[in-house]
């Protein structure tokens, strides 16, 4: 049983880390967004192995369902022509900072620190009593009521702010061509191009 859990944990960590590496290194932004979804799924499964079922469901709903769709829509709306360079000029500084943070600060601290873990109570093999969704709901209406309300206000303000920022007045709106109009435009361009080529050929023949 322990071995199975360890194997599952190893696979999930490999999925999370590998997908995250693909997110930051892959050239195509849409592929990066798809790898981001894979990473989110891995994190949700990690929550399941940590026995936080509600957080796992929320992760799938909010991150996979909402945020990645938002990211994909932003990619589609901005039609990015990224050019030949994927990273900024000073990407090596960013690499040094993040590698140094991981190798010199986080890893020694995490491994060297002695965690004062509480010993499991009760006879071995019995499941521990975990705080579940019921306690979570009670907490939201008792202890964490103010924070809950503040989070609601934050979401409302963020929604209004997003609409205000992304809103464009009708007079300034650029007209987007429909598919048929684009097709006609392309046909006209091709016709002029072939006409120019034909003129060039006749000029060559005259010479």
């Amino acid at each position, binding site marked *: 049983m322990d071995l199975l859990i360890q194997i599952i944990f190893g696979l999930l960590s490999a999925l999370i880390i590998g997908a995250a590496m693909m997110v930051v290194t892959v050239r195509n932004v849409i592929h990066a967004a798809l790898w981001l979804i894979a990473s989110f799924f891995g994190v949700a499964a990690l929550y399941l192995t940590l026995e936080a079922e509600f957080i796992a469901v929320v992760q799938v709903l909010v991150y996979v369902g909402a945020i990645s769709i938002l990211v994909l829509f932003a990619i589609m709306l901005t039609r990015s022509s990224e050019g030949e360079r994927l990273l900024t000029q000073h990407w090596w*500084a960013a690499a040094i900072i993040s590698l140094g943070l991981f190798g010199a600060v986080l890893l020694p601290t995490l491994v060297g620190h002695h965690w004062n873990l509480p010993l499991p109570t009760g006879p071995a093999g019995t499941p521990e009593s975990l705080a579940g969704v019921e306690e979570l709901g009670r907490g939201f209406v008792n202890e964490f009521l103010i*924070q809950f309300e503040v989070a609601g206000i934050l979401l409302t303000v963020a929604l209004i702010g997003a609409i205000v920022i992304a809103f464009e007045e009708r007079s300034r709106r650029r007209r987007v061509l429909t598919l048929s109009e684009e097709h006609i435009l392309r046909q006209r361009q091709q016709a002029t191009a072939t006409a120019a080529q034909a003129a060039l050929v006749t000029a060559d023949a005259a010479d």
Partner: protein
Amino acid sequence: MTRAIPLEAVLVVAAALFCIGLFGALSRRNLVGVLMGVELMLNSVNINLVAFWRYLEPRFITGPTFAIFIITVAAAEAAVGLAMIIAIYRSWLTVNIDSVDSLKG
């Protein structure tokens, strides 16, 4: 679960995810890529919170509550950030961070 996997393993995975997200946020040229890096970092913090809750205080709900608040803030941040990206694209016709430098001194 807590016997099979030590707490350090989960924390190291979260730290690696944080550093990858930091690298992405600092070095991607595309604004949407930067936002994806920030999302990875928020995810790693959430893993930390849930792991600490599970290993240290499994009877109290403070850890999941914090995780849910962070998910809320991440959703708000993503909505506002992507709206800003769309506004930037509209006026600059690009989403590369090194072309948007009018605030540079």
